[in-house]
């Protein structure tokens, strides 16, 4: 069975690019475009890896992360924060909440995303 990757990204252009970069790999890819949808999908599909944006409509990425960490069933799912929000405090907060990595979208090549996914899945 294919591993499941959940992309949480509200920017449709970026979500599309992430999806394209992973489409040739053997992953089942799902997309959530706001924080509420992300929480629902995490609970429902229990992905093997989450690529999580932070500035999201309805509920921000930290809230999603905190919520899934408090749930026994989802607390161990590896999360890679993929955001353009780059503040020391948010990096600290992300790592404190157990994110595997904190990657700034503008600093990563899209073709390197599969490598990141393979590393943490």
């Amino acid at each position, binding site marked *: 069975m294919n591993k499941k990757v959940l992309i949480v990204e509200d920017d449709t252009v970026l979500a599309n690019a992430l999806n*394209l970069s992973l489409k040739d790999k053997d992953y089942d890819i799902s997309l959530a475009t706001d924080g509420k949808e992300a929480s629902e999908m995490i609970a429902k599909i229990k992905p093997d890896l989450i690529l999580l944006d932070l500035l999201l409509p309805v509920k921000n990425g930290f809230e999603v992360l905190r919520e899934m960490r408090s749930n026994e069933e989802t607390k161990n799912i590896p999360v890679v924060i993929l955001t353009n929000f780059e503040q020391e405090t948010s990096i600290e907060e992300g790592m404190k909440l157990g994110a595997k990595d904190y990657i700034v979208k503008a600093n990563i*090549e899209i073709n390197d995303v599969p490598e990141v996914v393979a590393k943490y899945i």
Partner: protein
Amino acid sequence: MPIVVYMVISLTYISFSDRWLATVVSDEDTYVRLQTYKGWVFVLATALLLYVMISRMVRSLTEEIENNYNQKQKLEAVLRGMGEGVFVTDKNGRIVMVNSEMEKLFGYREDELVGRVYNEKLRFVSEKTGNKIFDISSTRFGKGMVKKSDEPALLIRKDGKKVPVDGVEAPYVDSACNILGGVGIFRDVTEERSLSKLKSDFVSLAGHQLRSPLTGIKWFVELLLEGKKVIPLDEMVDYIGKIGKSNQRLIELVNDLLSVNRIESSKLSELARGTSVSLKHLIAESVLETSMLMTEKRIKIGGVEDIDDKLRIMGDETQLIQAFMNVINNAVKYSPEGGEVEIVVRRKRNKVTVIVSDCGVGIPKRQIKKVFEKFYRADNVVKSTSGSGLGLYVVKSIIEAHKGAVRIESVEGEGTKVYVELPIMYNKK
């Protein structure tokens, strides 16, 4: 010198006056009597001399004391009248004076502080670490060092509240460079610090907003240039379309940022005095600016023709068109294809209200107030339509600078009404 002259004259007088008297007086009784008179003359002359000298000294000392006192008074008046908080300590760090600004800053009265060691009551901490700073005044004063706050400092008031301050403490010395005590000068920088935070938050948010479309462009260019595989033409067109979309977003965002910058750096209230412009002209121009999007979405705008030609607003034409254009553009953008936007103008006494209504997606109730904040976009549109979240902030700034007001009524899923109220400065009959 006068003492030496006095000694020489006295010795000469004492040593030779008796001999001289003996040469001019032969009678024993007369000689003794004259000798007594001579002695009294000497004592009186000495007393007179002493009196003159002491009076002069007293006068000069009095003048000096008065001068010092006046100088001290002046200095104290200057320190007390300063717009910044000042305290003065002796060389042991005991407070000897506190001005009224300092009393206000700390919340202590001068009599609660005078005589106390400086850091017993006046406490400062670092805003970043919470560690005590400016805490060793006597030692610093002892070393003759000037200490400026090199990190953002907070002072702790009597009531426990923390106030952001900026300041300096320095020793004061006498002419022989002996340290006599210290002076601390501090001022409340609450406003400066909050402005600086606003600015840095703005830069951080603007940076994030700019990065998103830039990342979109970067990623799709990278996908196109990957080179490992042949990309089908339709996919390639799709990628280029995404690059174009991101690029368009970037242009809109930069335009909005420039508008915000223009608004924040110009004195809008001065612009608002501008010239008298026709309200109908302002709205017609704003509609014209939106016509591309209107045609694209087949949206009709009604009510412009009905606006009274005579209504005039005093203000800056370019800024007002920008404000109305943002409102009308939003109405068109968030309306369904083929929808209608209605513009109604109501006049009440010396005010006019322009109501722009649409039947679009509306705004969630709890977010209506927030849409005027910089970069804020309502949850129900953030995914479906592009935008910087600056448009209504710009509208509010411009309208308020023209002594007007803007408010919104909206029902999510049903539509939005934006009320722009402006004073009528001139009504040509």
